[in-house]
């Protein structure tokens, strides 16, 4: 056993900065994924068949292939095809957002379909149009079913974000590797960023619990 955390002290600011770098793209990837996922979910429960097929095919492809492959395709293959030199930051948002939206769409679809059919009938019987029924009656109730699973997806995304270290994006994970290479000691920096990831996920969990409690007022 030779553990010496004092050696990583000079590198701590460098590694802490990684929190911000990671959160920055995770935040945009979650937003992007949630937005696309909601649209896909509406396609799936809607009555327009080609849109339903599209959403199902999309989900099948993005859930059926490794995320790291999707990330590499976007980062390495897009420049080859289009000549556009895509940044690691943008590739990461695209890959994680597109991938996450496949999962999010399933979560939202299931959440909407779990709302009692009587709610739809009651709204229809009152003459409420489809769009308003969705936004005012169905989605707010679906949120309660959706939120725990959605939080899970966001946590997974936050942790999986470490994959971007493979395309040279200087996130938390990559910084630990850099420090490890510098010091010829890997255990301390890896353990250190491990704790940082855990703290980030705890933060997300607490936010999720808070929102869930807010949604429960009507029970």
């Amino acid at each position, binding site marked *: 056993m030779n553990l010496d955390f004092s050696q990583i002290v000079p590198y701590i600011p460098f590694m802490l900065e990684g929190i911000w770098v990671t959160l920055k793209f995770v935040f945009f990837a979650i937003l992007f994924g949630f937005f696309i996922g909601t649209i896909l979910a509406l396609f799936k429960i809607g009555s327009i068949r080609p849109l339903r097929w599209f959403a199902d095919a999309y989900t099948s492809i993005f859930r059926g292939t490794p995320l790291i492959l999707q990330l590499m395709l976007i980062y390495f293959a897009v420049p080859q095809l289009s000549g556009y030199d895509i940044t690691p930051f943008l590739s990461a948002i695209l890959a994680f957002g597109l991938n996450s939206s496949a999962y999010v769409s399933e979560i939202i679809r299931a959440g909407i379909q779990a709302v009692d059919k009587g709610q739809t009938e*009651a709204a229809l019987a009152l003459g409420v149009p489809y769009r308003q029924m969705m936004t005012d009656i169905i989605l707010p109730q679906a949120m309660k079913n959706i939120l725990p699973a959605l939080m899970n997806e966001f946590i997974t995304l936050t942790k999986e974000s470490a994959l971007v270290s493979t395309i040279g994006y200087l996130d938390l994970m990559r910084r630990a590797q850099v420090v490890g290479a510098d010091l010829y000691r890997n255990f301390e920096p890896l353990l250190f960023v491990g704790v940082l990831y855990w703290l980030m996920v705890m933060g997300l969990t607490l936010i999720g619990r808070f929102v869930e409690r807010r949604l429960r007022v009507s*029970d």
Partner: protein
Amino acid sequence: MIKVENLTKKFGNNEVLSNISTEIKKGEVVSIIGPSGSGKSTFLRCLNLLEEPTDGKIYINDKDLTDPKTNIMQVREQIGMVFQHFHLFPHLSVLDNLTYAPMKVKKQSKPTAQEKAYDLLEKVGLSDKADAYPNSLSGGQKQRVAIARALAMEPELMLFDEPTSALDPEMVKEVLDVMKDLAHSGMTMAVVTHEMGFAKEVADRVLFLDHGVLVEDGDPVSFFDAPKTERAATFLEKIL
């Protein structure tokens, strides 16, 4: 007010309603009774097109509901519906349940809708529950709120789909009392029910359905005292 001509409804190959024709006049209270599976709920749900008829025509105020050009949402505004399982909006307070559709669909202002809502809550005896959420109410209270919610749209016709079947026995009366008041105020009502007392006492007419066929259509006194058909007689024997 409502005219039904040769209404037929099939689910796949299963014919649940066969060739039903009848009429409900303005101000009339009609009870629809029959054994379970006789199609009485489906019949009621066809009247506001929650079920789409396979064949036949339904006219409401001379407007053909089955015509694709008819704006069904507009027609539904004039038809209130009360369900067996209430279907109140659980995420909205009682008051918001009552004001939601008038504000969103009829574009009423909030004060107008709320004033009307408080009036209706008083009528159904639940003024003190305006700020409660549906899940804190008893079954009978929920159903009275559901009736008030339908009335808030000021419908010309009210449909009741077994409104007391999901209630504990001691709560049936409070709901029936509200319905009686409504009937006496001149509302046109179609009521699917197992409450023979209500049908006898309040209804102007009774429709008896069996296996999707309209077997009897007549006034309650002669229906209950001297049913014309064997099937109705057997049914009444079983339940009375």
